[in-house]
């Protein structure tokens, strides 16, 4: 009997929770929330934080080789912002009851996921342009929407981050615009980066919603406000014209403006590739995990020393 009463009680709470979300209430850490809401958010937010941190690696790869001092400074500042985003989202995620160190351990062990896009290599300088423009561009589409999500700490984190993402997006586009105005080799470098990064960028929005197991709940709870396909379309619509403006060709024969839908039609995404990459078989999955693990273990003695020093100070 007891159990049944409790279940009823819980579902009454949950109904009230769902209703308040429908009315546009913002959920704060102290508010009651269904366990599943908390878990899904924690999963999304920690994945997001991990993506910021792992995302530093492919771009960091070009800091020592940036071709001018101005570009070097911009790139360092950009990657530094991503570290800040990671910190900021980790601490927003901590409000859901898990320590940053535990989240980091999940990343290092390979248990937690991060954005599939960072498992591709940055092979030329143009890739740095493509990441800023396409990857940060896709992130903006995602994060602008997340800024209106139902969980207060996450939505505020997104608001703050979006401002910086716009700068990231612009500097990436500018890198490619310069290349497209440059020598024959520079133009080829830019188009090659476009060819390699376009499709993985579209995959960043995740599988079609019918293949996305958590979508329905997340939409109901306003953790997501639009479907993956909606957001992908939004990204394509705003990006194609930017590509054309600097003379880059989108590597999709089926890409075509549809007067009726007022959107671009586009070709089939290679989901086989996507699932391979998120399951650990992309070109850089192992490298990225190794880089994060190396940084962590190389820094172990430093963290231990800082802790020991702080404890000695406390004792005195």
């Amino acid at each position, binding site marked *: 009997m007891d159990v049944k009463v409790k279940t009823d009680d819980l579902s009454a709470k949950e109904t009230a929770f769902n209703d308040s979300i429908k009315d546009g209430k913002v959920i704060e850490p102290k508010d009651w929330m269904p366990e599943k809401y908390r878990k899904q958010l924690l999963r999304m937010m920690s994945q997001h934080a991990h993506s910021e*941190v792992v995302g*530093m*690696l492919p771009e*960091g790869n070009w*800091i*020592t*080789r*940036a*071709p*001018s*001092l*101005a*570009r*070097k*400074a911009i790139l*360092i*500042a950009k*990657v*530094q912002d991503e*570290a*800040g985003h*990671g*910190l900021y989202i*980790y601490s927003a995620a901590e409000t859901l009851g898990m320590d940053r160190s535990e989240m980091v351990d999940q990343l290092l062990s390979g248990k937690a996921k991060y954005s599939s896009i960072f498992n591709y290599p940055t092979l030329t*300088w143009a890739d740095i342009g493509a990441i800023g423009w396409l990857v940060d561009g896709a992130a903006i589409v995602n994060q602008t929407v997340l800024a209106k999500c139902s969980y207060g700490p996450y939505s505020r984190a997104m608001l703050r981050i979006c401002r910086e993402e716009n700068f990231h997006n612009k500097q990436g586009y500018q*890198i490619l615009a*310069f*290349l497209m*105005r*440059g*020598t024959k*080799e*520079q133009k080829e470098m830019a188009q090659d980066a476009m060819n390699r990064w376009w499709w993985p960028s579209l995959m960043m929005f995740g599988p079609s919603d019918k293949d996305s197991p958590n979508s329905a709940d997340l939409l109901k709870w306003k953790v997501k406000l639009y479907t993956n396909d909606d957001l992908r379309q939004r990204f394509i619509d705003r990006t194609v014209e930017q590509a054309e403006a600097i003379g880059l060709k989108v590597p999709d024969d089926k890409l075509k403006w549809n007067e009726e839908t007022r959107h671009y039609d586009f070709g089939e995404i290679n989901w086989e590739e996507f699932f391979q990459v998120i399951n650990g078989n992309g070109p850089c999955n192992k490298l990225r995990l190794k*880089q994060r693990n*190396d*940084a962590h273990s*190389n*820094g*172990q*003695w*430093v*963290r*231990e*020393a*800082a*802790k*020991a*020093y702080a404890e*000695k100070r406390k004792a005195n």
Partner: protein
Amino acid sequence: MTELNTALIEYCLRIADNSLIHAQRIADWTGHGPILEEDIAMSNVSLDLIGQARGFYTYASQLEGNGKSEDFYAFHRGERDFRNRLMVEQPDLKDFGFTMMKLFLNGCFDYLFFRDLMKSNDETISGLAAKSIKEVTYHVRHAGDWVVRLGDGTEESHQRIQKSLNELWPFTNELFEQNEVDELLIQNGAAFNKKELKAEWEAMVNEIITKATLKIPSDSTYFYSGGINGVHSEHLGFLLAEMQYLPRMYPDAIW
């Protein structure tokens, strides 16, 4: 071009090269730091140093008056042209303590150096020094805090940071090295005698080293030198090869 002008250009390049090569080493940490907060701090330091380099390169190019850009100095000069001190070009090999010790020893000197240089009768130089000293003050504090934490942290960290100090110490004499370029600028009131900074630098360094329970090595018989004449360690060539490859490979390209 007057002799004084040539000396000023040389002087600016020394400062700029030193900051740039140091920045290049520290920037290599981006994404690989021991904690995320330190990644951010090290990015800040390398951005400051790049800013200093750009300021002094730009002034050098104005003095030369031949339209060379900051990027010319950074990307189109060779191993024998660079005037940085040998300490900053030493590879960090992802040893955080080594990086912090280097930043500390170098930073203490730069602090005193820029403090004097703020009184230079060359207004551009004194202005650049005034901007730089604020940044260097932060670098010294940040790196000094780490030297103390690591020195007085665990047994392992104590040994490791002591080893870094031992390795870097023979590079410290070069901080005070000067030649006829300095002499000319000192006579003209544009620069100051670096040798006079030594006692103060030692006091600054000693304070933190003592606090960190570390020991200054007493058996350093050899001291490195050569940066002001462009005679470097073997490491610089590799650093430049990596840093300069794109502008060298595509000399006509604009980025």
